[in-house]
């Protein structure tokens, strides 16, 4: 995918004639950032400083000098100038496969590695950063805090007067209204401002639409994870408002539900539609083709990391989706090998859509583990069929990887795992031995040696029994 970036970006860039035009009045207004000195003493700014220290101390930040240089360069170009003493721009990375980013009130912007893995070019990265930069420059978080506090006072007064005598959840209702009204309006405004910031920095404004569309290829996040993500920062792009509302209406039900969100994120769809209109209304703007055409991101490592993170976090369907989108543009041994791993991890789950289990009434507190869910799905209608299909797809993918690069160790380990899971120990052992001849990492070798130790014991036992 990354290799096609220049041509994609060229197509975008060609839609903008290189003539100097001014931004529409609306956009100009949006970029007039008044100082808000009251914010210096806000809880949001205090919390931001504390989080920055804690994120650093706990090793939450992901470090990569090459990527950091790109982020810094793009941020420097796209963030607005502000006069607030407490805003100091810096961009950090967090290793997480979901396509998100968020900002804190004092100018910190955190980009997930999963977002970097999905962005197709520098202009889209600029769009994402511009969006968060506007949240910061317009003091959204701080204003939300003050606005929320005022509403809390009214809500608190109501609650104390009525004392929930009719059992109605005023608190929950007021909280939901506070957050959701803020969220929807502000996100639309911020999208428009990001377009203006992009244009001012010489990036094609249409990149903002592409960035939003890429974020729609969301991870299989549970609502619980979405809620946590939202609560941490409040500034995430991509939280589905309807899901958030349902979460607040009935947290117990929503939190126990696993939902796949592929292309169903209504708020992102609506926002992309609105942006399309905004960009369409812009006059022809100056775009520096050098910026967008010549520097595809050096993101290969992040893409591989994101795919592996999804598999590790038991979200193989999302990993597969990402792999397939990459393979279409740039087939190689890693991607085919990862495709095999994703199919293997899917087991009895369908590779598309939601897995369903046979209904069986049982009283349960809390979710099953992934292993238990796998066992239950295997007993469900279609489970065995999906397992067979996934195993076959995995085997095909590993062989495709070997054809592309016979010295890529991971393919042999994957094929070994596939046979091992089926208790087919001889082919498993042969593939593991091939893997060991290619792999030098001691830790990784240890896991395979343990499996070979087991295989040896099993085969010796079989031999004794045969004799």
């Amino acid at each position, binding site marked *: 995918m990354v290799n096609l970036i220049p041509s994609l970006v060229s197509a975008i860039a060609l839609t903008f004639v290189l003539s100097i035009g001014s931004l529409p009045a609306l956009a100009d207004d949006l970029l007039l950032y008044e100082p808000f000195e009251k914010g210096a003493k806000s*809880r949001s700014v205090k*919390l931001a400083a*504390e*989080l920055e*220290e*804690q994120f*650093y*101390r*706990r*090793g*939450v930040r*992901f*470090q990569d000098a090459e990527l950091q240089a790109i982020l810094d360069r793009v941020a420097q170009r796209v963030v607005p100038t502000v006069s607030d003493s407490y805003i100091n721009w810096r961009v950090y990375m967090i*290793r997480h496969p979901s396509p998100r980013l968020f900002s804190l009130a004092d100018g910190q912007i955190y980009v997930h590695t999963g977002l970097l893995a999905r962005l197709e070019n520098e202009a889209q990265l600029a769009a994402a950063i511009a969006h968060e930069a506007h949240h910061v420059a317009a003091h959204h978080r701080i204003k939300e805090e003050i606005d*929320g*506090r005022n509403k*809390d*006072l009214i*809500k*608190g007064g109501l609650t*104390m007067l009525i004392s929930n005598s009719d059992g109605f959840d005023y608190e929950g209702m007021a909280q939901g209204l506070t957050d959701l009204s803020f969220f929807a309006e502000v996100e639309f405004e911020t999208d428009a401002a990001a377009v203006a910031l992009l244009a001012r920095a010489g990036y094609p404004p249409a990149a903002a639409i592409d960035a939003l569309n890429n974020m729609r290829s969301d991870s299989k996040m549970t609502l*619980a994870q979405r809620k946590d993500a939202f*609560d941490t920062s409040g500034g995430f792009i991509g939280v589905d408002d309807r899901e958030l509302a349902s979460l607040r209406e009935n947290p117990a039900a929503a939190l126990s539900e696993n939902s796949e969100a592929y292309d169903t994120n209504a708020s992102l769809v609506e926002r992309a539609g609105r942006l399309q209109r905004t960009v369409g209304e812009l006059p022809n703007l100056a775009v520096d083709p050098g910026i967008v055409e010549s520097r595809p991101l050096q993101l290969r490592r992040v893409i591989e990391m994101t795919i592996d*993170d999804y598999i*590790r*976090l*038991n979200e193989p369907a999302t990993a597969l989706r990402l792999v397939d989108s990459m393979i279409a543009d740039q087939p190689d041994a890693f991607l085919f090998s990862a495709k095999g791993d994703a199919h293997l991890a899917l087991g009895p789950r369908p590779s598309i859509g939601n897995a369903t289990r046979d209904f069986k009434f049982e009283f349960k*507190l*809390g*979710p*099953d*583990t*992934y*292993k*238990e869910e796998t066992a239950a799905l295997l007993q469900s209608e279609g489970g065995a069929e999906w397992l067979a299909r996934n195993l076959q797809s995995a085997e095909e993918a590993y062989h495709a990887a070997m054809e592309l690069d016979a010295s890529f160790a991971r393919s042999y380990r994957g094929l070994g795992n596939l046979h091992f899971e089926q208790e087919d120990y*001889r082919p498993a*052992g*042969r593939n593991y*031995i091939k893997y*060991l001849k290619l792999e030098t990492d001691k*830790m990784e*070798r*240890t*896991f395979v*040696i343990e499996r*070979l*130790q*087991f*295989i*040896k*014991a099993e*085969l*010796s036992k079989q*031999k004794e029994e045969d004799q």
Partner: protein
Amino acid sequence: MIDFMWKISKFAALAALLLSGQSAFAGACIWGECSEMTNEFRDGTLRPKTIALLPARTSMTEDGVFEKNNKVAETAELEDKLGKYLEAQMTDRGYEVRRLGFDEIAGDQKLSELLNAANDRYDEEYTTIVAFKVNDVKNRRYTTEEAGRRLASYLGVDAVAFPRLQILGSSSTSKFLQVVGGSDDKAGGIWMEFALVHARTGDVEAFFGGVSKSSSSSFGGITLKKINKKGDKYMKSIAKTATKEMPKVDETVKLVKVDEDARELVLHDEVSEEDVLEDLEGLLDEG
């Protein structure tokens, strides 16, 4: 009978927590201490000698009159105290403890990646454990798979301890209103649990937890101010409570084959790579 009464008590406490809307803060242990371990941990087969003690993942919330505020900076000091007392408790039982500090983590990119991966994987299991399924630890229900094993291997230890600390306290104003009857009573307390994940299995082999200063009624919960002021005392107390049932290190037992029928549990004495590969290719070709 006592066991039955204990279950009733646990259920009553659970109900009180749920009704007071604090279920998110309720850990696996309702009150007092709780501990569960696999048979192999109990009999010493999979009991570690060296343990890496990770910094606790903490949530600390102040329950105000109208809103809840998450605290960040205040957690670090309590985590440090908790780590110190957990280390002391484990050391007293004969374990060799390597307590990981924030500086060490922040200064080692590989370590922070492995640690975050293992923590994230453990948290997936933890959501099930805290849904009051702590008993299933003894059935080896929970695993961090290779993520936990990689971290343990990198640190060169037999097991990794994953502590989780949850603190909920009222604000001073809220507490005052609760006392004078201007507000409903609010729950509060300190919950702490840690799992021990063995390097050889990646499974949660043991789980220990404790509750301190828990309250769900009677003039409100404890204030966060008090928790911070007496943090040292509370952390010492909760570390002691949680490790009450933790057995001493067992120097005599070696890792041996445990169970031939359960593949995940077939463990052998460590042998060299050469020993494993010797004659293996011949065996593979015989089929």
